[in-house]
């Protein structure tokens, strides 16, 4: 139990630093940045204590916001995907989720991609709607959300395959 708490805290801090020091300064092709911190929300263990989970996701987005001077944009997007996650767990993993015994390292690669993709796209769409905050720029919002989502997805998949080997 203690081990898990420690791991959560370490990954929280590690991902915040990785995001604000490295990933927000990539600016690939001018203005594309991956938002890798969502991996914390995606891979948080499935627990009954959803209150803590939603709150931690908010806290993570909020910390990123303070670093990047972005008001509450990341916090809003993070808390939304944290709240709707069970829906997509059921959709992507099906029966395994119903028994509450899911472990992300044991899941199918293709199932994991679907699960990541949906939540990342939703997160980025909310994020960029709040960043640009202008209904006349809906095309730009969709465009940026799509490109960044692909970027984030690739980095997230790389990170998971990098760290999952150590566990086994």
């Amino acid at each position: 139990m203690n081990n898990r708490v420690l791991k959560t805290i370490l990954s929280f801090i590690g991902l915040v630093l990785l995001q604000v020091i490295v990933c927000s300064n990539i600016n690939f092709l001018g203005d594309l940045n991956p938002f890798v911190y969502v991996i914390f929300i995606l891979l948080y263990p499935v627990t009954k204590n959803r209150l803590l989970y939603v709150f931690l996701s908010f806290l993570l987005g909020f910390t990123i916001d303070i670093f990047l001077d972005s008001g509450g944009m990341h916090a809003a997007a993070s808390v939304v995907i944290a709240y709707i996650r069970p829906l997509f767990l059921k959709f992507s993993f099906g029966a395994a989720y119903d028994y509450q015994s899911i472990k992300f390292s044991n899941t199918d690669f293709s199932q994991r991609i679907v699960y990541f993709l949906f939540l990342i796209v939703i997160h980025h769409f909310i994020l960029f709607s709040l960043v640009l905050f202008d209904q006349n720029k809906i095309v730009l919002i969709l465009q940026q959300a799509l490109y960044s989502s692909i970027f984030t997805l690739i980095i997230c998949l790389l990170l998971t395959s990098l760290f999952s080997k150590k566990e086994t």
Partner: protein
Amino acid sequence: MQQLFNFFIKNKTFVLFLLLFSYALSLTIQSHEYHRSKFLNSSNQITGSIYGTFHSITQYFNLKHENRLLLEENSRLKMMVFSHEDSVAVDSVLEYKYDLHPSLVYKNSYALPNNYLTLNKGENDSIKEDYGVITSKGIVGIIDATSKNYSRVLSILNTNSRINVKLKKTNYFGILSWDGKSPEITQLKDVQDLVELSIGDTIVTSGYSSTFPPNIPVGTIDSYRLNDTEDLYIIDVKLFNDMKNLEHVYIIKNTDINELKALNLSDE
């Protein structure tokens, strides 16, 4: 009452979600309005020191570039000194009113519509709000929040930024703002259609506000067009500064700022 409590307990996750989401949303809306986003910013102690630690590593990557910039500035200043050596006329009326504080950029962004910089000077170095920030090439922005050791700059690449500038040739002035698209181009508005413009004309600060001294370079005219009502120009200004690569900046402290503010207050 009992039912109400039961409802909350049953849907406690949803209630928490709603609370947190609306709080985040209200912060977001505030951040889109100028002068209301100061509550949370990256100039606090924790974020400042973390950015500082990593900056002390990454600054070595830019040393060559920074060296060249400093050399260029040095040689330009030397040229000025040499060409003015025997014509030093100090008029007490025009005496120096501005102090310059050198500072380092700890954090910079340019890909968002509302960009901010974090600098490593704060209230301990007597830096306050509304001081201007420039580099050797041109303007960067205005300080909008400070803590003890750090300060945050509202970059000219921020859709809330408004800076009073003028055309160097004809002295007509307008307001410099940014449309959020290219980090190299900003927009100058409110210049009348009677004014003669040509591409390549230099834009400088007007000196009408107490933030920037007059005649600090801003950029050159890249292109221009009339606005919808066809009586004012919208001018695209290509900045002299490379906003993507900022390292050493100067904070301008107007030593008369308190006097000017007091004067304005007594008017009201």
